[in-house]
């Protein structure tokens, strides 16, 4: 049951090697928690603006939705960017790479048939699908997703805020797509179904880049 006010120590700041870490005690109401974090950032803006800011759950990891919400609200209200700091340790220089390292050193999941409605693929690393991805199917990957066919299902790539992950496909018409915590903001352009498409995170935005058209009969 969320309390009407939350204690001041629900949001704390910790100095780390590469900057300042904002720790959120997610046992409290999450919206109130973010509001408290925003007010504390504003109160210390001058000092904090000279450092790189990171955010993490104090007692348990933030899920991608929580992380996305925190980053967006803090950015909107304070004009300051906070970066995710994965759960494992306090060293951002290795931790920021750890999501990418995981996908490099974890062998990709390779599937060689069409992925049909109701089927899903899950990978700690990348996913490579040698076939079409049909509507009603799902792919979850901490790494990148490469589809040698059309993408018409739901793709959740770059899980745990891996913003270095990409999605590549031959024909792009997802029902839903999330990459590195960023959601595809609008319905896909129908012309993308006839093009090779690369999806990536650039400048804190999800970019869909159609490439060449292929002969699609």
């Amino acid at each position, binding site marked *: 049951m969320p309390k009407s006010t939350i204690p001041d120590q629900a949001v704390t700041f910790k100095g780390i090697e590469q900057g300042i870490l904002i720790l959120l005690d997610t046992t409290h109401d999450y919206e109130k928690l973010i509001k408290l974090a925003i007010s504390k950032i504003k109160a210390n803006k001058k000092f904090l603006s000279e450092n790189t800011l990171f955010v993490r759950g104090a007692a348990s990891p933030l899920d991608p939705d929580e992380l996305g919400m925190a980053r967006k609200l803090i950015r909107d209200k304070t004009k300051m960017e906070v970066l995710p700091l994965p759960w494992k340790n306090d060293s951002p220089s290795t931790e920021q790479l750890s999501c990418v390292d995981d996908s490099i050193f974890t062998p990709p999941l390779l599937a060689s048939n069409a992925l*049909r409605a109701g089927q899903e693929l899950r990978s700690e690393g990348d996913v490579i699908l040698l076939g079409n991805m049909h509507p*009603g199917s799902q792919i979850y990957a901490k790494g990148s997703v490469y589809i040698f066919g059309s993408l018409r299902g739901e793709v959740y790539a770059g899980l745990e805020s891996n913003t270095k992950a990409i999605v590549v496909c031959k024909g792009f018409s997802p029902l839903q797509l999330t990459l590195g915590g960023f959601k595809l903001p609008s319905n896909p352009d129908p012309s993308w179904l006839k093009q090779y498409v690369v999806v990536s995170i650039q400048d804190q935005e999800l970019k869909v880049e159609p490439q060449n058209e292929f002969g699609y009969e």
Partner: protein
Amino acid sequence: MSLGMSEAIVFTSGKGGVGKTTLLANIGVALANLGFKTVLLDADIGLRNLDIVLGIENKIRFNVVDIAHGICTIEQALVKDHRSGNNLSIIAASQSHLKEDLSKDAFRQIILQLKNTFDYILIDCPAGIEYGFKNAIRSADRAIVIVNPEVSSIRDADRVIGILELEKIKKIQLIVNRYQHDLSQKMDMISVKDIVELLGIKLLGVIPEDISILLSSNEGKPISYHNKHPMYQFFYDIAKSLAGQKDLPAQDFAKSKTESLWKKVKRSFTMNR
């Protein structure tokens, strides 16, 4: 006429109401009239329909669950449809049991015994992907997936095909039912070509939307018994294709648009990929 090798073919769709039972009845009649000993088996336990479509509900004494529970023999449960000579028989589903009352082993045994007598066993599969569906597909050598040209039917068909592939059913073919060429030309309906591309399986046939199919079902006299009816040829073409008889030439369904109704429905769109 016997091919020497019996085949159990399941008619499935995922989505209900796409025309499985009606198509199965018509194709079954066509196979029987082509000389193949054919049995139609209603596996939709609890929601029996096949006997209604064939107009034989007053002849049903025993059903497939009765066979499984040892209450009767297969011969006692078989109902002959004499309109097809001696070639067509039906085994009805139970109206009062649940799907779980028919065990998969019992069902498999029934299919194996039927294979001793019949060239073709056409299994009317229940809608959905639960127990009754899984029971029906496990005993099949071939699956025919029925789809209507609309999004939810195609999605459900895709789900079903995925399960059929996992069950290692090697022959999976598609029939597009209730196709309306004019709507497809106006882009108001998805085309057969797009459906085949989306689902990625071989097309066996296309049945146009026609009110007479519904009317004949209500009468209990499948179209395949009306050899002068324009729609008759569609079912016979599919039956011949199933039986591996002379390959039908692929005809462009699109060309039929401006032709008379008679000529229009004589063309069937069968693609061999």
